[in-house]
């Protein structure tokens, strides 16, 4: 029995080696350009906020949307430099089931906390008061936009400066070593090319799970108790947009990992088309049976995609997803 097993293991191993997907293309054409764009757009956001810190400034709002778009397009890459020093959490603390973001922002404003004046001090502030989701409140929630003071202005500038610094640190982490770990496996992080491919595959599948269970699942709630107020970044009207952007980004990665499998491309296109046809930017319609059905169908499309990837594409490439941060409750 043991001998037979060993023979089969060797077979398995050689097969996995032969078919390991192209990690190089994913890193150089998917990961790095995504972070380049994030750096560019977050620096523009910080520079705009230096000039215009009012929530009513069209330039600031436009810069916010552009920078947030480029974050969502890399938001599935939750490993390596994005996880060092909690950078991704500091850029994007959501979901927020206990309302920590408005609480943490109110606490800073109430105390006129001087941390907003020094970037190093602001880096120690709760992640709930930092990043794009804090801006969703600061720029779009009446609690913060009405009677905004000089302190609110300084807070918005501190948040945008911090966002730009984190984006830069992630990109530099990739350029200064992390990309090489993936491209030249045989190190302690990635012992084989298969381990590097597995990391990318885990990020892909986890990104889709996040879209299904958080971006769509949270506002859906249950049939008896829909939760439209839980929609992601609803204050700035971005909830559906995040689903579309994230599907487009994960489509790109999926095709690179699957040698452009046409069935996978087709399944992504179906989901994206359905999302684009939804006339419901913040999933407000989940409270009505008809509106709810449309969002549920979209969620099913995303789930089917994920299932196809984990059950068919992963095994055929000799990789399967590893543990992810959504395991657990």
């Amino acid at each position, binding site marked *: *029995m*043991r001998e*037979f*097993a*060993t023979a*089969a*293991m060797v*077979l*398995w191993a050689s*097969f996995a080696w032969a*078919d390991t997907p192209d990690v190089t293309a994913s890193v150089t054409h998917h990961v790095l350009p995504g972070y380049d764009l994030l750096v560019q757009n977050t620096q523009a956001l910080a520079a705009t906020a230096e000039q215009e810190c009012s929530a009513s400034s069209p330039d600031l709002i436009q810069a916010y949307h552009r920078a947030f778009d480029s974050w969502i397009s890399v938001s599935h890459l939750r490993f390596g430099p994005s996880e060092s020093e*909690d950078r991704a*959490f*500091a850029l994007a*603390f959501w979901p927020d*089931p*206990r*309302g*920590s973001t408005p609480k*943490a922002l109110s606490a800073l404003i109430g105390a006129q906390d001087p941390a907003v004046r020094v970037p190093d001090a602001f880096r*120690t*502030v*709760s*992640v709930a008061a930092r990043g794009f989701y804090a801006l969703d409140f600061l720029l779009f929630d009446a609690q913060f936009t009405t009677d905004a003071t000089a302190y609110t202005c300084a807070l918005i500038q501190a948040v945008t400066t911090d966002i730009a610094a984190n984006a830069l640190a992630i990109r530099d982490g990739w350029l200064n070593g992390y990309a090489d770990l993936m491209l030249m496996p045989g190190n302690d992080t990635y*012992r084989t090319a298969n381990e590097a491919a597995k990391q990318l595959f885990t990020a892909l599948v986890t990104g889709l*799970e996040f879209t*299904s*269970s958080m971006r769509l*699942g949270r506002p859906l*709630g*249950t049939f*008896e*108790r829909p939760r439209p*107020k*839980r929609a992601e970044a609803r204050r700035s009207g971005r909830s559906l947009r995040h689903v579309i952007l994230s599907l487009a980004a994960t489509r790109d990665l999926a095709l690179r990992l699957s*040698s452009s*499998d046409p069935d996978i491309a087709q399944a992504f296109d179906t989901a994206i088309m359905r999302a684009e046809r939804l006339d419901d930017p913040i999933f407000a319609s989940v409270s009505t049976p008809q509106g709810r059905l449309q969002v*549920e*169908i979209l*969620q*099913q*499309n995303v*789930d*089917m995609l*994920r*299932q196809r990837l984990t059950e*068919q594409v992963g*095994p*055929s490439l*000799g990789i*399967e*997803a*590893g*543990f*992810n*941060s*959504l*395991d*657990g*409750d």
Partner: protein
Amino acid sequence: MKKLTIATSVLALGCGTAAIAGGHAEKVAVLETYANIAEANYADSLSAAQNLQAAVNALVASPSAEALEAAKAAWLAARVPYQQSEVFRFGNAIVDDWEGKVNAWPLDEGLIDYVDASYGGPTDENEAAVLNVVANASFTLSGEAVDASTITPALLENTLQEADGVEANVATGYHAVEFLLWGQDLNGHGAGAGNRPWTDYAAGAACTGGNCDRRGEYLKAATDLLVSDLEWIVAQWAEDGEARTTVLADADAGIAAILTGMGSLSYGETAGERMRLGVMLNDPEEEHSCFADNTHNDHFYNGVGIQSVYNGSYTRIDGSVVDGASLSDLVAATDADLDAEMQMKLAAAVLALGKIKTAAEAGFSYDMMLERGNAAGEALIMGGVNGLVDQTRSIERVVAALGTSIEVEGSDSLDNPNAVFE
């Protein structure tokens, strides 16, 4: 290309079913040890909870400062075996489905009893956040009138737990009992746990906090329910219990269940949800046992439980040892270096979690470590997080080396795919 994919898919399937390392008998022996440890660990949790029940009954029958302290000590002791058992949760659906009744967290404690004004009122997320069942014999929940004139285990379990579909409405289990014994920890990042006076259970004019009789009734109901829930899970791991028979029914799936439990508890749950989030939010309420300030032990015993399962050796609360054929043996037979790596990582994580425990017990409590700008505290907690994350990588390597396949916890929607929408 397409043709190649189809051909290799079949090959992969063949490998997936036939190539899992180790013989069937060896795997069954490993699974028997695993089930024996689970049974012993839950039996220990039950007997410790029965001690808690006796202490709670004594407190309610004749309230005193000593009786409250005795109940608190019994609660702390009860957590030692239970936290080790959490390694059985992910991977065993029967445990995961049941677990929320006994260890749900975090909770909006205002559902249960009085809270400080700083706690706030109902929120967007939870309309019942300050329901205060102890003070209200009747109230409306999700639009329906509820008669709570008598507080029973059934009321807690069927009506209040996850009321209004909100997970933070935790009415049962260890953390509900913890809140009723300690009360809110109002010390923020300062030293000290919750400081509920024993007179919250006193009779007549001595009663503080109002409704002392109903508070006692709630505490008894929650503790009784905890004991009966633990009795149920012990039975599931006994000779013909469902949990044991499920694990033993399919040796490969059983081995996968062990690894899924180890990896999910290490990574997503303890390192992520429970530890790292608290550091990032600097929020003392993100402590797993925020009322009793027992969080350092919660995390430490999670780590010990993961290690016990891999090594196939569990030390019971009476000092006796349950051991046998282990996952470690199985891995060593395939790849001795990997087994050594796995053992080393598990030991390193327990040591890192032990450093948090040591500091906390010497007076540097977990909520102090969470304070913004407290670099030493952050380093201690992140040491534990990194140890758990690091061991997860090795667990993934074990999964690959054994040729097994893990079933990662998915969303309900994926577990019940609805073909209608395809």
